């Protein structure tokens, strides 16, 4: 079981790297979904007696992250005419090197954190690296849809982090969090539709009209 959980963690990290290096939007969405599913499976692999509650919750997560979110995002991609490519501000090799660097940093951090249990040693670095990958997607990719994707990846990372810390939250709270994430993705999806309609594209680099120093009409 131990090695198996470790394999899954390695898989999660590899998915992070894949997210950093993939140039196709659809593939990116699917990778993020796959990562969500893998994260959802983790509590079921913890071994021992599995409560119905855990089972149902894992099922809800897998359904949401593996089916609903990719469907929503792919729909948003098609409807908003986002195109097929992920447009990035830095090159892919730099992205992947940043990811590896983040992984090294997070394994150092993970070794310094006084965690309650050190059962699966790699969960914490993996989750931190996933969160970093999410930030990377948000900051270095220009399309609005990749930013939503980055948010989802951060969410995956935080979920895995919660598993690593063995923090038990009541079912209601977990469901409320999940509902919030769902609504967030939903609202962002709607916002993407509107952005594509108003701006004719969803490149967030163009969302720069609001600032403190220069307004287009002042230049005139």
């Amino acid at each position, binding site marked *: 079981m131990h090695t198996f959980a470790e394999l899954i963690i390695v898989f999660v990290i590899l998915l992070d790297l894949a997210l950093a290096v993939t140039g196709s939007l659809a593939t990116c969405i699917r990778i993020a979904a796959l990562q969500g599913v893998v994260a959802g499976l983790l509590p079921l692999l913890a071994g021992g007696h599995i409560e119905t509650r855990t089972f149902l919750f894992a099922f809800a997560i897998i359904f949401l992250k593996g089916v609903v979110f990719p469907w929503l995002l792919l729909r948003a991609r098609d409807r908003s005419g986002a195109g097929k490519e992920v447009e990035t501000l830095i090159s892919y090799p730099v992205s992947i090197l940043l990811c590896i660097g983040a992984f090294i940093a997070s394994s150092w951090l993970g070794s310094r954190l006084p965690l309650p249990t050190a059962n699966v040693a790699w969960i914490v670095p993996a989750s931190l690296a996933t*969160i970093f990958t999410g930030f990377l997607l948000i900051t270095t990719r220009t399309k609005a849809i990749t930013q939503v994707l980055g948010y989802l990846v951060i969410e995956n990372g935080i979920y895995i982090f919660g598993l690593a810390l063995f923090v038990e939250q009541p079912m209601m709270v977990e469901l409320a969090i999940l509902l919030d994430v769902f609504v967030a993705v939903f609202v962002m999806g709607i916002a993407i539709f*509107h952005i594509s309609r108003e701006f004719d594209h969803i490149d967030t680099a163009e969302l720069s009209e609001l600032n403190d120093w220069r307004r287009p009409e002042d230049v005139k």
Partner: protein
Amino acid sequence: MTNALLLLPLGAGLLAFLIRNDGTRRLLLLYTAAGHFLLALLALYEGPSPVCSGSQPAPWFAYDALGLYFLVITSLVFLGAAFFAVKYLASEKRDPGEDSEAGFIFNNAPEAVFTGCLLFFLAAMTAVTASRHLGMLWAAVEATTLLSAPLIYFHRHKRSLEATWKYLLICSVGIALALMGNLFLGAAGLKSGAGLELDTLLLNAPSLAKPLLKAAFLFIFVGYGTKMGLAPFHTWLPDAHSESPAVVSALLSGALLNCAFLGILRAHNICVAAGLADFSAGILVLFGLLSIITAALFMLGQRDYKRMLAYSSIEHMGILALGAGLGGGALFGALLGALSHSLAKAGLFFTSGLVLMAEKTKRIADVKGLWRRAPRTALLWLAGFFLITGTPPSGIFLAKFLVLRRLVELGHYWLAVIYLFALGVLFTGMARVFIPMTFGEREGKEGEKPFTEPADMMLPIAAFFVCVILAGLFLPGWLQRLINAAAGNAGAL
């Protein structure tokens, strides 16, 4: 009581989506706001619920003095906003508005959606003030973000959309970090089985794992600090405040920022109870001062008066954080400042809505001599300026003074100098905007007919301003006791 407070706006919000008639829906908004305020007063009369001793499971939603205090502020601001919104929505319906800067006509979001989201937003904020479970608190804060996003995008044009997007993304990601903080907090209490309930956490505070608690506070601070608009996480705030309709700006500034502050105070309280007061207070002081300085820097050279008000909000959030970090009298000042700022800023944002209606532009350079065109709006505008900058007699003056006194008391003379200097810059910067807007020379606009503001819209503004002045002149005993009790819940040193 708590359930009624939560369910009333929730039910009314659902109803708002079903009602077809605009007039009825507006009345629903008004009555719900009034009902909510009455319930809040009733809760205030009942007083805070007794502290859970730990023998029985702690309830997830209950009011302590701090939650009650913020509930009353939220409810009061919302009541004023509802008053204002009734007329505002009617006038928006007649004249959807023209983009003053790009010069094209835009549409508004459907009013049913707007009203429904307003009411849901109130429910979410009520849930924030009532939450005794930090996970629930997180979910509620995130809900406020998601529910207020459609409100910001009421005027459907490019700039409001940009503001909405930034708001959604920055706040969602920021609040995701607060979730991390919650997890750290849970891990810190794992050994003592503290869970994430505020009461059990406070009971077991001394036995929490200190390094994890520190990490938890940092993450929660960054997360809710983003939402609260503390520099350097404030970047969404000026955009969202300047592009949303006046009602929403007032609610964001007057109610929402306070809710985020409440989240930080909860974490600070746990840190204080665990003996990490120096750590969390240091961070609060640092970022509080940083926000004040940032606001002062950006205040100079503002071109948009709603943006300017937004930066003033950042300044006040900085003062709140600073006061909370300094503790003692400053914490009292910070809490009093939260009340006064909410009312004064809400009033100012309402007034800015009137100015926008009168002048159809948000550019400071294009608004001159409001005095001639709309004297009553100009009077409110000027009064708001004096109140918000903390000219006595204003509750804000008292708040700022208490913070300053605490700084000197603790011997932070350099910080006091910086603080005073930044406040001076802010005052000058805002005076440079407000005075010409009110008294400046109107050019080339002869023969225009004077602007008459609806009395209903001015009523909440005037009422709020009077409250702020009263807070500066004389605090009733019950309010003092409430603030003192609230300070006890917010980690008074």
